[in-house]
């Protein structure tokens, strides 16, 4: 059986090339499946969540983000557990020409060509850089969501769709400040995901991250800039938050095409409550051809106004789920708002009685979506809304 070790042995990794620069003096290389942050000297300290060499590490040679192999080989390697995963990473780092005892590895499904590398200077003059990869379409999750992986009784699992954030700060931070920097980066990530209204795949909520995010904070112990504690509204904290947000948005776009524009889609909004094109088509027996329906659905997905109204609709259900309203209080008003905003007054007696009989907001959303789809088909037939 083909193993990950076999593939590593067969891989050509003689392609090291500069991909970017991070402050202070860190060169970022692309090589094989890896993104290598090569530290220029021994004066660095890293706090990371790496499985292979995590925690606080002094004088590492490199911080390395490695794309998985994908497919059956990757799945089988995960089933072999964390030690095997770490051993393969050590093997791969040796292949890259790095000292595996002095390198900090991360693993992800993302392709390193989609890494975002950028820098900025904080308002108090500290240079901050980021190298980040990630996607959450297939692994978005919210803190507290039900998890399926019981490590106490199962094999290793790194999951698919991981955000790997590597931040360098040209200052000498205490360990406490490094930990704070790590948490600030995590919080900024959650803000970006909220802006995108990207969903959790494990609940009906907006995600706060992916299930398996990892972070490294790299600081320059030789810097004359000493930072004892990191206030959350300090210039450096803001710089960390800002560069995380910028880098994450950029790499989401590169890796999975997730942007504010692509999220501005009614079907993307409704997917948070499990609604999709099939469900909506199943609500009513449309007197339309399949071509007409599919074409109308395509048209709907481009409609910004419908995206907003879909978002409004799910916000109403969120208000119920979060306890702001009781469902019986909210359902009538939700029906009124969605009907009048999207359909005008429903006068067809069957549609009327069906709409009035619905008892939950998701049911109303689904039925109103179907009637909206029918309305689009009719308008397109009449030549309006082409």
């Amino acid at each position: 059986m083909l193993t990950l070790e076999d593939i590593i042995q067969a891989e050509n990794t003689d392609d090291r090339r500069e991909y970017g620069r991070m402050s202070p003096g860190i060169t970022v290389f692309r090589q094989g499946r890896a993104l290598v942050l090569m530290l220029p000297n021994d004066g660095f300290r890293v706090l990371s969540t790496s499985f292979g060499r995590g925690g606080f590490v002094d004088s590492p040679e490199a911080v390395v983000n490695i794309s998985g192999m994908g497919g059956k080989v990757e799945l089988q390697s995960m089933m072999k557990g964390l030690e095997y995963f770490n051993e393969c990473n050590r093997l791969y780092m040796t292949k890259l020409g790095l000292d595996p005892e002095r390198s900090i590895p991360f693993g992800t499904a993302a392709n390193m060509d989609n890494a975002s590398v950028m820098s900025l200077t904080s308002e108090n003059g500290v240079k901050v850089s980021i190298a980040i990869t990630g996607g959450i379409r297939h692994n978005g999750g919210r803190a507290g969501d039900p998890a399926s992986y019981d490590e106490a009784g199962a094999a290793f699992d790194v999951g698919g769709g991981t955000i790997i954030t590597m931040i360098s700060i040209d200052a000498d931070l205490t360990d406490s400040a490094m930990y704070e920097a790590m948490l600030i980066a995590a919080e900024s990530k959650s803000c970006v995901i909220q802006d995108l209204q990207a969903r959790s795949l494990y609940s009906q909520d907006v995600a706060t991250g992916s299930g398996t995010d990892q972070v490294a904070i790299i600081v320059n112990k030789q810097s004359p800039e000493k930072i004892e504690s990191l206030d959350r509204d300090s210039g450096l904290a803001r710089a960390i938050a800002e560069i995380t947000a910028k880098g994450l948005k950029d790499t989401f776009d590169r890796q999975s095409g997730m942007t504010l524009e692509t999220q501005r889609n009614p079907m993307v909004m409704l997917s948070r409550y499990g609604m999709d094109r099939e469900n909506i088509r199943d609500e009513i027996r449309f007197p339309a051809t399949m071509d007409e329906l599919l074409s109308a659905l395509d048209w709907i997905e481009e409609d910004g106004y419908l995206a907003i109204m879909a978002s409004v609709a799910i916000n109403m259900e969120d208000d119920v789920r979060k306890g702001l309203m009781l469902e019986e209080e909210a359902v009538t008003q939700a029906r009124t708002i969605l009907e009048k905003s999207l359909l005008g007054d429903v006068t067809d007696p069957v549609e009327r009685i069906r709409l009035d009989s619905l008892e939950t907001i998701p049911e109303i959303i689904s039925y109103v979506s179907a009637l909206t789809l029918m309305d689009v088909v009719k308008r397109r037939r009449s030549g309006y809304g082409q």
Partner: protein
Amino acid sequence: MGSEFIERSIDHLSIRFEDTYHDVMTTTGQGLVCAIGEIRFSNESTSFADGVLNIHVNGDPTKFQISDQSFGQTFVKAVALSDLSSGLGRIGSEPQEGPGETVVIVLMDCNMPDSTLARAGITATEAVTAAIQDLGLRYGGVRPSGSNKQHILTIRNRDSTLFLNNAGKHSKLGELIGSTVIAAVKDSAAANGTDINTRRSIVGMLSGYGCTQDDLQKLSGCPDPSTFLVKVITKDSDYNALLTVSAVLHIHDNVASGLFPEAEGLKAAQDVLRAGLREPVGFGSILDVLFNTVAFYFMDP
């Protein structure tokens, strides 16, 4: 969890570890502290000596709340003090003024490497953000992601025979961290006067966007504050109006983040107001139209 003693009094909360070996990773200035004996939260200054970590909190230590959960052998307890009535912040943005704070202690009754202890802090941080999002809080029109004064402490039990490497949300340990932190933060916030019912007020919702009752009175044209107050009291918690105002604010939030274009957002907001509250009043931004419309709604017969 059985391996620590939690004592809460009028002036402090103490977590003591006796007979077992615990380490803490903290943002309070000490970093990673091994073999911690006691963590004590009070209004006294933060300090560390003789295995005792004293941590200053602004708030009332009696309002610390505890949530614990387990799955199989995995036990997690979250202890939180969270005053979300002021001092909120969206990381990277100008914070709100005020003494509000959030302090979260995550006690994990298992051993783990330093990397996992740090990763637990990430999951706990996301859980604080999730709790605040659930409560729908706002300040100056901003969606907060935490308290401006916020500390996270993650604690492992070095004597446990259970050794875990994963504290991400996909793992059971991560799930327990997330759900206990969310519960403890919400419970403590409620003890400090902030819960979901805080939002069951139109005036309360709008105050998060910088619009006060006085502003609404002026916009309404009503010359007498007491007359306007009577109108507000009658209609402020009307659930049809609440749902509508919440929907329009949701549109505004997502226009502000760039998810929706402003012109389409304004049209949708006007349509929602027309369907759910009354004919919209005023021109300008979504908030301008909303504030004017709500002011007139209060004065409608």
